[in-house]
């Protein structure tokens, strides 16, 4: 697996503009590496109001693994949640803070 290149801000910008949907091959590879990274928290969302509100949580794979809510403001937009999780993963892998807002 290729290492994540902190210099590829173009991929950050691409994701920020379109977190879900048709994306470039390089962005796909970056996302695959982030999402499958064994050392990153297994992020997941917990829905508290159908189609309206989600909370950030972690949930390891496997039967019976505990879901843990994280101390993070709730999301009203799934794409905003995608960006915030991208930021968390990017920070963990590169040490760099990305802008908070999309």
């Amino acid at each position, binding site marked *: 697996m290729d290492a994540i290149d902190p210099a590829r801000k173009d991929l950050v910008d691409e994701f920020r503009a379109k977190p879900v949907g*048709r994306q470039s091959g390089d962005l796909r590879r970056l996302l695959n590496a982030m999402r499958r990274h064994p050392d990153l*928290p297994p992020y997941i*969302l917990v*829905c508290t109001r159908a189609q309206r509100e989600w909370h950030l949580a972690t949930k390891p*794979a496997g*039967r019976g693994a505990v879901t843990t809510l994280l101390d993070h403001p709730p999301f009203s937009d799934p794409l905003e949640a995608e960006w915030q999780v991208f930021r968390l993963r990017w920070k963990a892998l590169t040490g760099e803070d990305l802008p908070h807002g999309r």
Partner: protein
Amino acid sequence: MGADLPRKRIIGYADKLSLAPGETIAFKASCEDIASYRADIVRLVSADLHPQGRGWIEEEIATPVSGSYRGREQAIPVGSWALVDDAPGLCCESLTVCLHLWPTTPHKGEQALLARMDPEGRRGWMLLIDGAGAIALRIATDKGVTIVTTGVALQERVWSFVGAGFDGATGAIRVWQRPQKTWPGHDATGDGSGAASGSLDAMGLPLGIAARPGRVEGLRRFCLDPCNGKLEAPRLYGRAMDAGQAIALQNNPGAERSLVAAWDFARDTMSETVRDIGPAAHDGQLINVPTRAMTGHNWDGGVMDWKAAPQHYGAIHFHDDDITDCGWDTDFVLTVSEGQKSGIYAARLVAGEQSDHIPFVVRPPRGAATADVLFLLPSASYLAYANEHGAIESAGAMDAFSGHLSGLSAQDLLLGERPDLGYSLYCHHGDGSGVAVSSRLRPVLNMRPGVTNAWVGPAGTFPWQFNADLPLVDFLEHEGFAFDVATDEDLHDEGLDLLSRYRVVMTGSHPEYYSKPMLDALGGWLQRGGRLMYLGGNGFYWRVAFHPEIKGVMELRRGEDGIRDWVSQGGEYYQAFDGAYGGMWERQGRPIHALAGVGMAGQGFDISGFYRRTPASRDPRAAFVFEGITDEIIGDFGTVGGGAAGIEVDRCDFAKGSPPNTLVLASSEGLSDLYFPGPEEIDNARPFMDGSQNPNLRADMTFHETGNGGAVFSTGSIAWIGSLSWNGFDNNVAGVTANVLRRFLDPEPFPEP
């Protein structure tokens, strides 16, 4: 932190899914810390909670059900096993118990293999896998409890002949395990010996195979220490033997005069009875439908069909998380009024902020139709997906697959916490084997209005199956089309007779699972001039079998090919419920393309695309489809991924059987690169398989005449129905659907092209 995990504290199910006026349905509920709840019957129209959706629309029906009910918790008797009723002939002062065993979780903890012991463990005997994964015999006499073990852990998924003998006169105990296969440094052969004192008395106790009989509550028979794995040919003799003597008798137990019982799992495979071929016929009853027709210790690959060589298929795979029937006590019943409109209904249970809807279908009176249109609710597919655990068990691993974060609902969280609610045909059992049997006689938490699928769509926002099909009801009502509703189970039971009363049949969004009677009926009806509107994707894909004795229970073998979250073991492709070869219909000479004009092309779960009309859409044969519609782009909107073409998509393919008179009216564009074809499309991996590069990965909208005045219109997309209500039904997806339905309702035959 300010938020707690949501918790669902009221759940229920009904004994029926579909019933006619005059018939009665029983509802059963379980509540956690809820003293009472209110129940009403409602007719469901919409549960589309998408921010731009129609919202929740239900009509309360005045019935005697309306009222308050006492909340109570009802336990679920999970785990499959066989119960042999107590009989004096089962008693013996000395004994030998033995069987062939293929353990799948030898290190889970104590697991009963054959047991005649009281729930408290103070009286009787039990052959078991002990806490160290070794074969052991527990003897409980008036002098105390003795356990003797081989002390050698069994090898997982290796057949072993295991057993034990107890001499009641001397108290001597011998236990053994003889693996069929060993490796250097991995030899699980084991023996143990010891002695017990006191006299053995199991009088009055039932016998359990694959579990120890537990308590009984109402219709619920609980078990203790259930095991995981395949068991074959259990034997019970009335004298103590050693391993050599027991092995010598295994294939001819009747040669031993002390034989008490010899269960042959290869007999009556389609039933829930296990036959004792011994002198007293101590037949047993299977509980929670373990998987039958499984390869046994002597299967050598020479025969693949259990019917051709049942002696090679003498095993049953038991699971500690099998559940077929919760057996709950009934909370209330409803007798459907004569004249009640056919439709999709639910028992609505409410206690404060907690609620549950238990859906059911009121079909038209038996032998009659009340409309020319039948909405054939794809309940077999609901059953296949019942309590699907993809997001709750795979968690973050689903991100890369679906292209976004999953969003767990209270239903998902409860499923993750409660293995006793059972699994879907997409899940694995706790022992890693695939779930081949599903039942609706349990709370099915994802067959609920308003419930979306946790990993389909960003944050799990796309409706799926039952909830994705409700917008069709909303559309039909809004547009003023009269319709009846029936389920796949109705079609399975009644076949062509049911369909023959209708001019038009409309499918749901994802009618993926079909039994042979269902497919035969649909094909036969089309040959007689029926008109099918296939408004879904990945339909008619898997062959399934319904249980011959227990209504609402369905079997699947994921064999040979197709999109499989698990794969049946070699030699286990034939269904136990009906003996037929399981797997994809396409692999059995029944391609969906020949029926619907289109067939499965691929899937993706992030966004949907749209259709662009083709020149063939101007063909006079299809003029009715686009009457009043001038748009070139169809369905670039909707609640399922923002488009009408997506999630699972089908294409026209003449090489795969699409009728030569099929018109491709429009084809999809705009799918993402997380769309991939199914394995049946990949003979060899190529670098252009994904959605933006693969010309074969598309949804085709098609039309073809079937002869005798009939026709088929297909959209080849799961997302289609999710676009119907967009902009208050003022859109070209609703327009096309209404145009086709109006023409299909017109008795004027479709001429042959």
